[in-house]
């Protein structure tokens, strides 16, 4: 395996991590809420896709189109019913509640689907690849990366070009004054979490087709997502993609040296960025 190939695989893996992280970044950017159940929600969405694929024989790409609106509704309800009540001056309640939610989700999934590790089958696509001489690009990793770019372009258009996006930014700046503009912050937050969960459904598709997953797979995905967000700088979606890519490349480079070093070298890259740029590579100018 050439070094170029290793780096390309790392960049594509970074796309997957950016998909894990985009929803986390969106929610944090708008309401300063850290959702510790984010990884478990990705796993939940992966099981939903799995049920549709195995139960109804649907194509996984069709299944994700059904799971996206379901996850949007689940996210909206979660924020409206539960998480809005935890928001306030104190940062602890949302952490405690989402930590609890994470445990509840893991155990519910364990109850429903057992501890067996599962995989979403994407048929011939799984092994399809594009051969470019020294570099071979798998079609699924490429699609994951392109999906990440599409998600980030889409979210940025939403945030910077639409009335809803202006409401997101205004509410993030000053919820009281946003209320005077006719914006209902709690409703805006619910829509944001709904959107984050729709992105989670896309992430779940690539999580489930790339490797095995089981009900306890969430926390590790949360850590990758966190690291991507923090490397990139809080509140910047393109930064999150860059963070995912740095994490992915560090992991594949580490694995190329010694397969046991994959996860470790990702964490080391994260620590190195924290040491040099504590606010991340592309922190938002206004904070």
């Amino acid at each position, binding site marked *: 395996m050439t070094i170029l190939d290793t780096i390309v695989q790392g960049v594509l893996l970074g796309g997957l991590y950016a998909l894990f992280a985009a929803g986390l970044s969106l929610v944090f950017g708008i309401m300063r809420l850290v959702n510790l159940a984010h990884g478990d929600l990705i796993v939940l969405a992966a099981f939903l896709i799995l049920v549709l694929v195995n139960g109804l024989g649907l194509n996984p790409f069709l299944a994700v189109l059904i799971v996206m609106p379901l996850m949007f509704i689940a996210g909206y309800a979660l924020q409206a019913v539960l998480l809005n009540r935890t928001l306030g001056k104190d940062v602890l309640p949302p952490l405690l509640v989402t930590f609890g939610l994470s445990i509840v989700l893991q155990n519910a999934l364990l109850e429903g689907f057992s501890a067996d590790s599962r995989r979403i089958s994407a048929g011939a696509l799984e092994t399809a690849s594009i051969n470019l001489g020294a570099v071979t690009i798998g079609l699924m990793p490429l699609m994951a990366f392109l999906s990440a770019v599409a998600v980030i372009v889409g979210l940025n258009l939403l945030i910077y070009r639409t*009335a809803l996006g*202006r*409401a997101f*930014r*205004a509410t*993030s*700046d*000053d919820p*009281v*004054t*946003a*209320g*005077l*503009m*006719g*914006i*209902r912050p709690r409703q805006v937050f619910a829509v944001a979490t709904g959107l984050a969960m729709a992105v989670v459904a896309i992430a779940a598709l690539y999580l489930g087709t790339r490797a095995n997953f089981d009900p306890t797979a969430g926390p590790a995905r949360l850590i990758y997502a966190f690291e991507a967000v923090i490397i990139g700088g809080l509140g910047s979606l393109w930064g999150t993609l860059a963070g995912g890519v740095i994490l992915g490349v560090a992991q594949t480079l580490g694995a190329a040296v010694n397969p046991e070093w994959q996860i470790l070298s990702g964490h080391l890259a994260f620590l190195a960025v924290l040491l040099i740029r504590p606010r991340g590579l592309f922190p938002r100018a*206004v904070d």
Partner: protein
Amino acid sequence: MTALLETKGLKAFYGDFQALFGVDITVAEGETIAIIGANGAGKTTLMRALSGVLTNAPDSVFCRGEAVGALAAPDILARGIAMVSEGRRLFPSLTVEENLMIGAYGKRRGAWTLATVYDLFPILKERRANPATALSGGQQQMVAIGRALMANPDVLLCDEISLGLAPVVVRDIYAAFPRIRESGAAIVIVEQDIGQALKVANRVYCMMEGRITLSGRPEALSRAAIHAAYFGAQSHDHS
């Protein structure tokens, strides 16, 4: 005739501290009201109660006869009451134009659009793409007023719009008021600048320590009466 906006015996508390002790004001269609008073008189508290920022006076605030004292700010805005907050409170993440556009989030239709606001404050059109907080204080105040107008309000509440601005800038801003009045909106201004307030208002309320101490038409009020109502200094003569 029911008033457009009215308070009856309005009381307000911050914890144990009582800020308003039974305030009665009325605002009729198209009227310009000035509320004057020293720091801590309760003027801003009154504005917060009128705009839905404070929502704990269910039986004391009325809009066209409907009790609205418990409604949140978006519901108050939907009834045509918009506020220019003290300190302007522009959104730093948004450009000048985005700040104006977000004023129309509630989608009330009327004469005020981006075009008519730019016509009222031409400098804002030049600076439309700048972050709102990159503007001078006076220009920021114009954005704040324009943003509230974008909601096409029936009542425009203006809290301390001259605070911290040079007199010449204040004059420029007040020069826009006749055109705002022509659009049909009633205006309630809270001011410490008594001269400016008396010039634009049809009626004046003077507040002190959470109470209305004087009210009437500006031309009917003597300087001595205003002075006494403002400072509460009528008979502190110990000589």
